[in-house]
């Protein structure tokens, strides 16, 4: 038996929502970052499932590219977090509200 793509999609949706809620509720920059990774993984999962269901290898190619971009994003993002921390000695996102209008 083969699991229908819909179930994968449902799982991915659940992961995505959990990531999004974590993103909105937590204030630790690092945890928020991890939530972003969660959401990215959820999307990747949908792409793989859809690719299989549609009988198309390009879904996996897209995931590959997302992985690369995510890696680059992590590198830069963590560097920024470290830089901010060295300046402000905090990892709380609420401390960083200088761009208030």
């Amino acid at each position, binding site marked *: *038996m083969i699991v*229908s793509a819909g179930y994968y999609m449902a799982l991915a949706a659940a992961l995505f929502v959990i990531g999004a809620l974590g993103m909105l509720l937590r204030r630790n920059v*690092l945890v928020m970052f991890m*939530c972003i990774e969660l959401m990215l993984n959820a999307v990747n999962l949908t792409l793989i499932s859809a690719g299989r269901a549609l009988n198309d290898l390009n879904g996996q190619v897209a995931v590959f590219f997302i992985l690369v971009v995510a890696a680059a994003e992590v*590198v830069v993002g963590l*560097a*920024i977090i470290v*830089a901010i921390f060295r300046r402000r000695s905090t*990892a709380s996102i609420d401390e960083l509200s200088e761009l208030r209008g």
Partner: protein
Amino acid sequence: MVEGILFVLMAVTALAGAVTVVVARNPVYSAMGLLGTLFSVAVLYVAQLAHFVAAVQVIVYAGAVMTLFLFVIMFIGVDTSDDRDERLPMQRFWVGILAGVIVLLAAGITLSGNFDWVPAAVETIPEATNGTIQAIAEPLFTDWVLAFEATALLLTISAAGAIALAHFKGQRT
């Protein structure tokens, strides 16, 4: 049948890991939860014959990226300032409403049986989506070669950017 069991097992671990990421006070636990999720998703990739992507997921994500995360957590220190003061008292309320809407939406979709975003599942796994390295490489280096070059450039630039940020000598305020 095998895939069904695998799916249930891995879905449970993935969700548990995800919840841990969000709920854990200590960022180290969050990282561990994320690690669990990443491994589960990698298994799900394999279940769907995306071998190469699964390998990359384990090596790059679970390996390199998570190491980086843990390193930064250690560098910054386990900071629990998260709960010290809440500047957005209405935040939980609004998030709760949004979550409620999402749950309602999901329930509505499920109950209406309108579950067919993608065509009905095929009975056997088609060979065309067998994501071996060879199979992935062909579209990657023919149709998407330009995008591939662009990602190479992106990685180089981000590496340079990270170095530049690390060298940044700002005054502490």
